[in-house]
């Protein structure tokens, strides 16, 4: 179908043309509709022709199919008959299979039951094994940890000991060095004192020298004065000698004058002789006068000679004085030399003093250095003391930690003891009500049984049996906790006496079973006596209990001291001495795989109807052996007997 669309926009057509256009448009539409209807009719006629042809074909096909179906129905009929036969056969067989299945189902049920039982047993075993492994692992870890802690502690203790030793050694060395320094200081102080003494002596010597120099200078000054005086005296003497010479010259001159006068006198004499002649008298007088003059001359000559001698003497004195002056000069030179020497020596002494002062300085320096060194040493000592203090603190801490651990161990021990005490007290207190139940039951049995039915009587018997069993259990528990809590006093005793006591206690059973207890070897043993008695009671009691019904029990006990080397057990130290106690019997024994398990609490190999017991006896035995720091092993063979070996430190 086509639709005519308005393609011209209305705005392009004038308004007055619109009605005419609308009319045209309607007629066109009507035409279009007729054309379309015609076409559709033609198309439908075609479709119908086609469909008639198809129906013809389909009819032919259906006819063919109907034929095929008739054939197939015949075949199916045959097949159905065959199937009916087969079904019959199958039902027969199914019935047979049903019977077989029921049988199988029954067998499976049985197997499942058994498997379930086995599974439960396995699970239980696995659980027990796991528990044991866990416990062993925990114990192993705890042991390792303890061992490790012990190691660490020992190491640290060793380190501390080493550190302490080193410190002690260092302190010693330092004390030595300090002592040496003290000695060195003392020596230095002594040397200083000596030097001071020597300096003081030198000072004194210097003062003395200065004094001597002064003295010498004084003497030199005096000598100088004396020299000057001598020189002055010499001068005076020279002067006087000069004066003497002048006087001599004058005398000589006078003598000459006199000679002249004598000559003149001679002339005069001659004249006078003449005159004498003339004047003989007068000559005579003159002669006398001459004689007198001669005497006077003689005197004068004498005096001249004396003067001459005096001159000679003066010259000699001058000479002497010159000599002495020369000597004094020499002495002066010598004094000057000595002064020089002394000055030199003083200079040397001064140098020596300086050197000493230098040495003193050096020594003071060294003393200072030593003081510094001492301070450093003191500092180091302080440091070491600090470190020692730290180590002491560390030690204290370790001690504290150890204490804490010991405390904890003690607490655990106390808790353990409390637990055991609780076990003990509760077991103890359980005895009383139980006993009363038993007594009441015994009274009913004795006096009221006539009023009871057979069933009632049987129930009372059961009560009695259970009570009896509970009583045994409580008694065993008490014995077990007693072993843990009671005081442990070791005494040296002989096994024989303990065995005799036990035999007395088991007398009834021994007689009843015609048992033989044979003690082959004994030696003194150091044990907690009541515990060891309990141990022997349990072991001998077990040997009696687990005997062959037809064979009289024979129990053989030996006891001897042996070294670990002889005993061939890896848990024993080779060099240590052990008391080895062996108890063997000819009873029913046990399978070797149970050798460890029989020592565990509540572990039993037999049911209680067969062999009564609580499963505590051997746990007590093991505990007692452990209380003696020993080990116990069990060896057994089913139906052949059991053997227990106890090793306790001798």
């Amino acid at each position, binding site marked *: 179908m086509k639709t005519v669309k308005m393609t011209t926009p209305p705005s392009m057509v004038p308004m007055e043309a619109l009605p005419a256009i609308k009319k045209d448009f309607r007629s066109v539409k009507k035409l279009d509709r007729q054309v379309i209807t015609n076409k559709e009719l033609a198309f439908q006629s075609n479709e119908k022709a086609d469909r008639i042809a198809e129906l013809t074909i389909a009819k032919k096909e259906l006819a063919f199919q109907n034929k095929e179906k008739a054939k197939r129905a015949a075949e199916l009929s045959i097949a159905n008959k065959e199937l009916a036969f087969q079904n019959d056969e199958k039902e027969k067989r199914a019935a047979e299979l049903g019977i077989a299945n029921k049988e199988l189902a029954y067998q499976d049920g049985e197997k499942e039951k058994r498997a379930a039982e086995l599974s439960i047993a396995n699970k239980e075993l696995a659980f027990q094994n796991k528990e044991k492994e866990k416990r062993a692992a925990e114990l192993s870890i705890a042991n390792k940890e303890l061992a490790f802690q012990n190691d660490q502690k020992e190491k640290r203790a060793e380190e501390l000991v080493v550190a302490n030793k080193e410190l002690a050694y260092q302190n010693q060395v330092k004390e030595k060095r300090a002592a040496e320094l003290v000695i060195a200081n003392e020596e230095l102080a002594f040397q200083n004192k000596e030097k001071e003494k020597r300096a003081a002596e030198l000072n004194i010597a210097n003062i003395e020298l200065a004094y001597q120099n002064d003295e010498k200078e004084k003497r030199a000054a005096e000598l100088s004065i004396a020299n000057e005086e001598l020189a002055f005296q010499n001068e005076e003497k020279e002067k006087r000698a000069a004066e003497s010479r002048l006087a001599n010259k004058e005398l000589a001159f006078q003598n000459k004058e006199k000679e002249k006068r004598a000559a003149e006198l001679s002339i005069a004499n001659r004249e006078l002789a003449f005159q004498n002649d003339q004047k003989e008298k007068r000559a005579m007088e003159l002669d006398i006068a001459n004689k007198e003059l001669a005497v006077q001359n003689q005197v004068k000559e004498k005096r001249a000679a004396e003067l001459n001698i005096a001159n000679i003497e003066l010259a000699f004195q001058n000479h002497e004085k010159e000599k002495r002056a020369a000597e004094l000069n020499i002495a002066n030179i010598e004094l000057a030399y000595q002064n020089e020497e002394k000055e030199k020596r003083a200079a040397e002494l001064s140098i020596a003093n300086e050197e000493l002062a230098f040495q003193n300085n050096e020594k003071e320096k060294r003393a200072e250095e030593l003081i510094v060194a001492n301070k450093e040493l003191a500092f180091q000592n302080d440091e070491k003391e600090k470190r020692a203090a730290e180590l002491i603190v560390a030690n204290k801490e370790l001690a504290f930690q150890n204490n804490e651990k010991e405390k904890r161990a003690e607490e655990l021990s106390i808790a353990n003891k409390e637990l055991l005490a609780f076990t003990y007290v509760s077991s*103890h207190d359980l*005895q009383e009500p139980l*006993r*009363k139940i*038993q*007594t009441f039951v015994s*009274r009913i049995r*004795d006096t009221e049984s006539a009023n009871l039915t057979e069933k009632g009587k049987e129930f009372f018997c059961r009560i009695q049996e259970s009570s009896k069993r509970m*009583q045994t259990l409580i008694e065993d528990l008490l014995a077990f906790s007693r072993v843990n809590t009671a005081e442990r006093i070791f005494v040296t005793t002989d096994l024989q006496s303990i065995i005799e006591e036990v035999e007395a206690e088991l007398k009834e059973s021994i007689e009843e079973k015609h048992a033989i207890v044979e003690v082959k070897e004994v030696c003194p043993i150091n044990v907690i006596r*009541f515990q060891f008695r309990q141990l022997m009671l349990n072991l001998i009691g077990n040997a009696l209990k687990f005997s062959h019904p037809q064979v009289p029990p024979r129990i053989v006990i030996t006891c001897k001291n042996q070294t670990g080397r002889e005993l061939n057990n890896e848990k024993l130290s080779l060099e240590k001495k052990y008391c080895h106690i062996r108890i063997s019997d000819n009873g029913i024994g046990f399978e070797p795989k149970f050798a460890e398990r029989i020592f565990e609490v509540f572990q039993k190999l037999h049911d209680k109807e067969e062999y009564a017991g609580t499963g505590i006896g051997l746990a007590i035995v093991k505990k007692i052996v452990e209380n003696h720091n020993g080990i116990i092993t069990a060896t057994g063979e089913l139906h052949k007997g059991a053997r227990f070996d106890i090793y306790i430190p001798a």
Partner: protein
Amino acid sequence: MMPNPVILVLADDDKDDCLFFKDALEELPLTAKLTTVHDGEQLMKLLIDNSVAPPPPHVLFLDLNMPRKNGFEVLAELKLDEKLKYLPVIIFSTSYEPDVANLLYKKGAQYYIRKPADFSQLKKVIYQALLLATEDNSAQPAKENFVLKGDLEAIPS
């Protein structure tokens, strides 16, 4: 020879045990006059009054665990009393601890009975204790005979 009647004191705080004792005694071939007290203080009061007003008892059966004053204290006090120290004291207790028994023997107790669970055994052991304790020579026995087991052939009827 057993006195007739034999005068007994039982000190036990447990009423059931007192009943058992009384019943057992009544079934024994003897005439007895039993006084029962339930603690140590009552007992001492009774014994001291008795010492003023006769007749004094021939035998004392003494439980250990009692209120107010226990058996150990009673025993110690009796042994310090000039008149009462000759009264035979038979310890009558549920438990048996070797250490405790040794201590009691040292303190001068005459016999030790562990209360049996079986009533006929109770009768036997009470009878045995009365026979032994009322003998003319009632000195303390040897230690191995201290604990009574009631091992009699039979009780004469």
